[in-house]
């Protein structure tokens, strides 16, 4: 049995109470509640408030923040901190996220648990720094070279920024992967009520420390059940080695060994795909008896709810909402079940290349039409556009 140790939040990091704060500040508080004690970052709109708050709060909580010279440095600095024993994150947006890609791969390869927060803005390039998009969803999955799997989580309110970034840290520790916390400018900069519970009500996962002694311990020997290896940290006498090269269970390079490479890369992917059912998180509304299904995530799912209300009020169309909270991996079986019942699935998202919709199409395999409803970003959908798409699909 894989040993996952659940505990409750360290009270030092938890600001219990009701706050009126934006999504960026809420994400910072969630990270602190989750036990994040190290962040490295570089200023970039619209994400900077997360690290500004972290820089102000962390000396009082016990931990460290450093503003690095660029996003490349930030995205590897935090991994040094993880191997020194802390939970760590970095925070960025589009251009910075692009610069971090190599180190997302490094974290995947070395199985370094950590969280990358991306407050998405419109792209490509400098794009729309002060306005939202959901255009990095495929990049977050595939952006680094080679095969690997990661986990994407998308919140749709400041409250969820707080709650779901805790999930992000927990999943990072359980599966030893970089988790992508995919916010957007709208959620990051909107201010709403955020209720932070008592520390004892916040569940956090401890690192998967090995119980083996130096000499017995193999850094990349996976747990037979969930395929995730156990961890050590620097300074404890294990004299372990970590490399971005293909490596054996000792952590030693084996970059010319086809079999070792094949086994390693397959395990890096399978520890997510085979445990996907334990990672999925979604929300359904009125899906029991609907003709049209809206499938979305983050701010787009929230805005779509307004479009759904309009369709019900004006035309009495039965529309359900399926909101992905963990956007990747996806609950394929449930999506297929729904696809068999509904007339069409509409996928509103803030990108025009059907970044998530194409994944739904792949899952649905023609059981019903999948209608991408793209918006290039720099704004969110007008609920009327979602209403119109529903009416069209219901014809």
């Amino acid at each position, binding site marked *: 049995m894989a040993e996952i140790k659940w505990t409750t939040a360290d009270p030092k990091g938890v600001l219990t109470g009701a706050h009126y704060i934006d999504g960026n500040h809420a994400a910072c508080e969630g990270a602190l509640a989750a036990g994040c004690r190290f962040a490295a970052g570089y200023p970039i709109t619209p994400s900077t408030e997360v690290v500004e708050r972290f820089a102000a709060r962390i*000396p009082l909580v016990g931990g460290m923040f450093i503003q690095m010279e660029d996003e490349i*440095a*930030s995205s590897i600095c935090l*991994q040094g901190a993880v191997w020194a024993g802390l939970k*760590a994150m970095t925070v960025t947006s589009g251009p910075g996220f692009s610069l971090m890609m190599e180190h997302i791969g490094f974290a995947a390869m070395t199985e370094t648990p950590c969280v990358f927060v991306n407050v998405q803005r419109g792209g490509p390039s400098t794009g729309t720094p002060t306005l939202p998009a959901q255009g990095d969803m495929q990049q977050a999955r595939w952006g680094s070279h080679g095969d690997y799997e990661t986990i994407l989580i998308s919140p749709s309110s400041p409250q969820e920024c707080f709650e779901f970034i805790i999930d992000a840290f927990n999943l990072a520790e359980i599966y030893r992967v970089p988790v992508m916390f995919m916010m957007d400018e709208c959620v990051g900069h909107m201010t709403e009520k955020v209720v932070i519970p008592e520390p004892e009500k916040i569940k956090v996962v401890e690192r998967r420390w090995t119980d083996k002694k130096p000499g017995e311990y193999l850094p990349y020997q996976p747990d037979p059940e969930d395929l995730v290896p156990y961890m050590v940290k620097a*300074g404890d006498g294990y004299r372990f080695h970590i490399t971005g*090269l293909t490596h054996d269970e000792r952590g030693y390079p084996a970059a010319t060994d086809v079999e070792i490479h094949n086994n390693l890369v397959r395990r890096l992917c399978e520890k997510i795909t085979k445990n996907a059912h334990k990672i999925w998180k979604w929300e359904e509304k009125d899906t029991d008896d609907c003709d049209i299904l809206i499938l979305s995530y983050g701010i787009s799912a929230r805005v779509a709810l307004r479009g759904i209300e309009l369709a019900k009020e004006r035309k009495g169309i039965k529309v359900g909402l399926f909101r992905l909270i963990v956007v990747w991996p996806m609950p394929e079986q449930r999506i297929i079940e729904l696809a068999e019942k509904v007339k069409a699935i509409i996928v509103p998202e803030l990108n025009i290349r059907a970044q998530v919709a194409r994944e739904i199409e792949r899952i649905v395999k023609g059981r019903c039409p999948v209608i991408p409803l793209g918006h290039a970003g720099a704004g969110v959908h007008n609920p009327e556009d979602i209403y119109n798409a529903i009416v069209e699909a219901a014809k």
Partner: protein
Amino acid sequence: MSTTLRENPVEQFLRTDRMPHIWCPGCGIGTSVNCFARAVLECGIDLDKLCIVSGIGCTGRVAGYLRLDSFHTTHGRAIPFATGLKLANPDLHVVVYSGDGDLAAIGGNHLIHAARRNIDITVICVNNFNYGMTGGQVAPTTHHEKVATTTPYGDPEYPFNLPDLAASCGAVFVARWTTYHVVQLTKTLVKALNKKGFSFVEILAPCPTLYLRRNKLGTSVDLMKYFKEKSVIKHGANTKEVGLETYDKEIIVGEFVDIDKPDYLDNYNEIMKKRLGDKFQPWGR
């Protein structure tokens, strides 16, 4: 008469299960590792607290051969990784061991910023004047006019003066030796390991397979003679005057900078204490 094989004292720091290593015969990196291992023996640091971080390249493989907590990171990014390691657990002694291309080209920005911050790490830069792992391309340390695969007619650029770069950015300890100067280098490494703040040691080393052969500079033995004949020991030399622009220039070696100033964490803790008072628990002290 029986002969007993005496164990090499540095063997305890080596991952003997990973031998043979990848370095070419005559390469200077192994010599530098030998000096480093002897320095580690002498420096008095708890070896369980000593971490080694490398980037990518021939010297980047050093981390993998040392029986220490060791991290073989990405190209150019050993220093920011080391920064995270050190700041997250200030009890660790963190050494970055990498090559000239890794630290001065792709990682140049991190080198200057870590020196500026005075992060308490030791950076050992083995300078073999070119990119070895990828087959001998031009580096920011290649001598003016010397040949590399990507400057087949000669390098039109000027090389970095690495000790001066580190010193001018704020390093508190800066030295240079060649792999000919094994005794001096070992002593200097002991000092660098025990120095609080950002220390930088450049080690000039032969790359016989690529740089020497391509530039018709002879064998490693010839380069050792060159190091011996051209080197001038000048402790405390003005780092402005230690550049290696051309191959025929004299090589100034020695300990150039050794000053004391508060490191990043000293300053961090002092400022936080000043602003936050008793609400602040000093970090890592």
